[in-house]
C-alpha cells in the first residue's frame, strides 16, 4: 500500500489532540528539588571527607564512589525506580542515575547468564553515554589545544 502523506498528517493532528500533556512545571520543580537533594547529599559527603583530612582531589573521588554505591544500592533494593518516577531528570542526571542505568539491566539480565546476560547488557544504556561522553571530551580537548 502506498503511503498517503496527507492522510497521515491529518491523522497525526487528530492523535495529537488526545495526547495527554506531561505536567511540565511539576516535573521541572520535582527534578530541581530531588536533583538538588542528591547534590546536597554529595556535598555532605564532600565536607565529611574534607573534615577527615583528605585532599580535595581524594575527597572528590571518594564522593563519586559513595554516590555510585548509593545509587546502585537503592537500585538493588528496588527504590531508585520509585524515586525516578516522580523525580525524572532529577535522579537521572546525577552520578547516582548513571549507577542505576548500569545496575538495573545487570539485575534484569542475570538470568541469561553472567557473561552474555548481566555483563553484556550492563552497558546498554550507560554505553552510549560513555562513548559520546569520551568522544566529545576528546574533540573539545583538541579544539582547546589548537585555540589556546
Amino acid at each position, binding site marked *: 500500500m502506498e503511503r498517503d502523506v496527507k492522510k*497521515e498528517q491529518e491523522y497525526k493532528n*487528530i492523535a495529537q489532540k488526545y*495526547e495527554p500533556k*506531561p505536567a511540565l512545571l511539576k516535573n521541572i520543580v520535582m527534578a530541581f528539588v530531588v536533583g538538588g537533594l542528591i547534590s546536597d547529599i554529595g556535598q555532605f559527603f564532600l565536607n565529611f571527607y574534607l573534615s577527615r583530612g583528605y585532599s580535595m582531589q581524594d575527597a572528590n573521588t571518594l564522593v563519586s564512589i559513595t554516590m555510585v554505591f548509593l545509587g546502585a544500592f537503592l537500585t538493588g533494593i528496588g527504590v531508585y*525506580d520509585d524515586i*525516578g518516577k516522580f523525580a525524572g531528570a532529577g*535522579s537521572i542526571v546525577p552520578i547516582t542515575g548513571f549507577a542505576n542505568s548500569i545496575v538495573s539491566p545487570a539485575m*534484569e539480565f542475570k538470568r541469561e547468564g553472567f557473561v552474555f546476560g548481566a555483563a553484556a547488557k550492563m552497558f546498554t544504556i550507560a554505553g552510549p553515554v560513555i562513548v559520546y561522553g569520551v568522544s566529545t571530551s576528546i574533540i573539545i580537548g583538541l579544539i582547546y589545544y589548537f585555540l589556546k
Partner: protein
Amino acid sequence: MAKKKLGTQTVEFKNPPSIIAGGTIVGPKEGEGPLRDYFDMILVDDTYGEKSWEKAESKMFQDAVNLALKKANLKISEIDYLLGGDLLNQIISANFAARQLNVPHFGLYGACSTTTEGLTLGAMLIDGGYADYIITATSSHFSTAERQFRYPLEQGIQRPFTSQWTVTGAGATILASTGEGPYITHATTGKVVDLGMKDANNMGAAMAPAAADTIITHFKDTGFTIEDYDLIMTGDMGRVGRDILLELLYKEGYDIESKYKDCGIEIFDESQDVHSGGSGAACSAVVLNGWLLSQIQNGVYKKVLFMATGALLSPTSSQQGESIPGIAHAITISTTL
C-alpha cells in the same frame, strides 16, 4: 465459491461454535483492579514460583488452559487443536506451554490482537467441520514484555502518560461444535493499517486507525447497526486510543460511545498508575474470559462485538525508525442464533 463470506472481510458461521468455558489467571496488580472478582486465579507473586518471568508466563498460559478444561469438564486429549500466542520473541510462552500440554498446536502472533485471531480461526475450524473442541489462549506478562520492548524494571525513568501497562495474565477459551451458546456468529478479519505513528509509548494512537477500519467494515459487511449490539468492546486501546477511535468513527457517521468499552480501561483503576490503561495479549483474554463471559451468562449483554487490537512493532523496527502498523480482528458473540 466462499459460501460463508459476507462482504469483503467478514464470515458468517453456518454452524456457529459455542463458547463453553473460559479460564483466567492474573497477576497481583490485576488482582487489585476493579475486575478482580471475575478471575479464576490471582497470583500472589508474579514469578509464580518460577526462576524467570518467562517461565512464569508460560506456566500461566498452561494453567489458564487447564482451568478452562476443568470448567468444561473436558480432558486435553478431547481437544482437537490449541490455537495460542503471546508477545515474546518466537511466541515461547505459548509454544513452551504446548510442549507440556501435548495437543496439536497452532502458534499465532498478532501482538495483542491474537485473542480474537485465535477465536476467529478456531470458529472457522469448527464451522468447517475440522474440529469439535478448540482451545484458544493468549498470555502476557508485564515483566517479560517490558524487558523485551522497553527498559529494565528498576530503571529510574518516567513513563509517558500515553503509555500502557502490560497485563500479567493468561486467558483461555474453549469452543465447541455443539452447545447452547454464547455463540460466535460472525468474524471480521482486519487489515494491517498504518498511518505513520512511530511512538512506541503510544500504542493507542498506532492501533486506532486499524480498529476504526475493522469496525466500519464489520457494519458494512454484515448490515448490522450499532443498535443491534448491546456492547462494543475493544482489547487494549487505552484512554488515548479510545478517544481517537471514537472520533475516527464519529467522523464516518458511527457514534458508538454509549455502547463502547475497552478491556484496557476496565481492568485497572485510574489510581493504579497505569497511565493510558492496560495492554498486552492477556488484557483482552482475561477480560473476555473473566468479566465478559460472566456478564453474558447473567444476561447483561446478549450481543457483543468484541475486537482485540494489536500493535505490530518489534524493538528492531522501532529502533530503525519504522512506523507502527496496527491490526484489529472483530467477532460477534451472541446468545441467540
